[in-house]
């Protein structure tokens, strides 16, 4: 029998005299969760609830006694946990994915350890050195495990370090310059991940590339918008040039790989930038009217093109 889905049932029942009982039966047989699915689900549901509640019970127990614990015990507990987790990863025979998930959890524990260390010794550390410490100490794990979630954590940490450094130490950097640095950092990660996946045949999950691409486009858009609204400076010119080159590359890449995602975010970013430019030229009432019409027309044009591209791709 051909597998039919919910939309099929909906369309057919809308245009026929299919009765309610038969439709209910068709839904039951083809769509709804089966007995076996339910059994599996209930087992997973109860065991996850059990583990979550028990572990949080234990954590709350330590939290209750936290103030009374000696600093040696506090650090020892966390370090012990990290050592046990890494030993478990090295020695146990679980699947690679399970081990990687545990390693990601352990990498977060390293951050907790640094936070507790800072709290006990009042190191007076600027928040940014705390993040740099965390980033450096998990770098080896990130490279060895090559696990996307861990890479993502690493990239978030790098961006945080950069942002905090700019805020706390390099306060003379302009916002445009900081956003440009973020943009370059994320784009270089994106491009290297695409190149690595191409030449080494490693499969990089879609959500990973998409999140980095989104972050990169965000920083470029914000950077350029701030540049437009503020006085002219040279970093802005550089950012404009880099963005123009990279956006063109992104569009070419999207067309080549038939990927609608890049063909949506780059035009969207351009539309936002042009809208800000329009408002910067004049903030009179009619400019806002023109901007709002411009947004509607341009977004509609982008969507129209995307739909016709999708049609073309599916026919190829």
């Amino acid at each position, binding site marked *: *029998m*051909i597998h039919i*889905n919910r*939309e*099929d*049932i909906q*369309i*057919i*029942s*809308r*245009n*026929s*005299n*299919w*009765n*309610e*009982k*038969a*439709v*209910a039966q068709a*839904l039951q047989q083809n769509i*709804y*969760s089966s*007995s076996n699915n*339910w*059994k599996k*689900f*209930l*087992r997973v549901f*109860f*065991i996850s*609830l*059990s*583990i979550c*509640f*028990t572990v*949080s*019970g*234990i954590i709350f*127990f330590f*939290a*209750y006694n936290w103030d009374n614990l000696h600093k040696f015990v506090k650090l020892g507990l966390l370090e012990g946990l990290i050592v046990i987790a890494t030993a478990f990863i090295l020695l146990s025979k679980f699947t690679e994915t399970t081990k990687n998930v545990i390693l990601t959890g352990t990498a977060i524990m390293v951050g907790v350890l640094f936070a507790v260390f800072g709290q006990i010794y009042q190191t007076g550390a600027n928040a940014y050195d705390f993040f740099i410490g965390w980033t450096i100490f998990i770098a080896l794990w990130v490279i060895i495990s090559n696990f996307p979630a861990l890479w993502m954590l690493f990239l978030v940490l790098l961006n945080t370090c950069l942002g905090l450094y700019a805020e706390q130490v390099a306060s003379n950097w302009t916002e445009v310059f900081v956003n440009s640095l973020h943009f370059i950092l994320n784009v270089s990660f994106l491009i290297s991940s695409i190149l690595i996946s191409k030449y080494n045949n490693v499969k990089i999950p879609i959500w990973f590339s998409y999140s980095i691409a989104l972050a990169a486009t965000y920083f470029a858009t914000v950077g350029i918008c701030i540049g437009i609204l503020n006085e002219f400076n040279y970093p802005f010119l550089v950012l404009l040039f880099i963005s123009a080159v990279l956006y063109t590359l992104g569009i070419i890449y999207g067309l080549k790989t038939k990927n*609608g995602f890049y063909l949506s975010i780059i035009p969207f970013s351009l539309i936002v930038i042009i*809208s800000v430019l329009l408002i910067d030229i004049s903030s*009179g*009432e*009619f400019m*806002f*009217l023109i*901007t*709002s*019409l411009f*947004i*509607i027309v341009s*977004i*509609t044009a982008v*969507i129209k093109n*995307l*739909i016709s591209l*999708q049609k073309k791709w599916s026919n190829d």
Partner: protein
Amino acid sequence: MIKSENIQDILQQLKLQEPERFEFNEDAILEEYQKSSADQSSLAIKVLSIFGGLLATLAFMAFLLIAGLYDSGTGLLIFGFAFIIGAIGLNKAYNKIIIDTLSISVFAVGFILIGLGLDKFHANDNLPALLFILIAICSLIITQNYILSFISILIVNGSILSLIFINKNYNSIHIYNAAMVIAFTYVLLNEAKFFTLNKKISKLYNPLRIGLLFSLLMGLIMVGKKGIVELSPNLIWLSSVATVLAVLYVISILLPIVNANSQKDKVLIYTTSLLLLLLSSFSPAISGSLLIILLAYLVNYKTGFAIGIMSFIYFITQYYYDLHFTLLLKSILLFSSGLLFMLFYLFTKKKLNTNEKV
């Protein structure tokens, strides 16, 4: 979705299966298939049209504010109605994904203008909300476009909630919650009825389902997070009446599916679930999100399931965070619930395995 070549096969198969005369309008079915594959909108397109619509709305509101056009109440009302009628008319005329951006922003601007216009007239506080409900219902009757219908359902329920706030009749939130629980449960469990009733209702089904889900969540958040609404703490359990009864009802549907048919099992399952649900009756939001998870899994509704799991985790965390117990007591509570769920796990594992052997 099946390919168009397979439609004929399926229709023939159905014709054989149905005892009575099975009649269908093949042209209409093929036409809908063609339309839905031409309008095949990826998530990127949906998100683009929603964000684009929002940005355009913002720019347009800025235009109105700066131009000072909002000074005339009558003008605002006329424009507001014109915009809403325009958006609905556009959708009616060309029901295509391309014009979604335009119709969303025009529709939203229309509501804002009417709200501002009524404000100029110092109308009764309840009037805008009542009018919004009426307009949104009219829009639902006229057009069944996915995004407009979804927004209309949110406007109806959001206006009901705002009526509760305006009149400071906070405890009636429990009535709202009960109504949402009943409506959501009914809609999810009677899918076939909605599909076969008539064309319009069948097309409204998807936006109705997601709209009710969000409306139910809004109500649950009101009772699940302390301090949003001044509720009488002694009456919080009122919302639980509906959620607990609904969960028990879903369990009664579930029992035959997992082959728990013996009298002993039934009594055991009902007593433990009732006990656990009664314990959680201080937090209707927890049993409410449990209801969402169970219903969504039952009918294999993936978005609902994901939202249900997220809200379940959120409400449990919120509940323990708000609880005025010492950390030690919380720790004991959490640990013993963990052990209890372990017992449930062992019970289901044992029961379901023996069933599989039979």
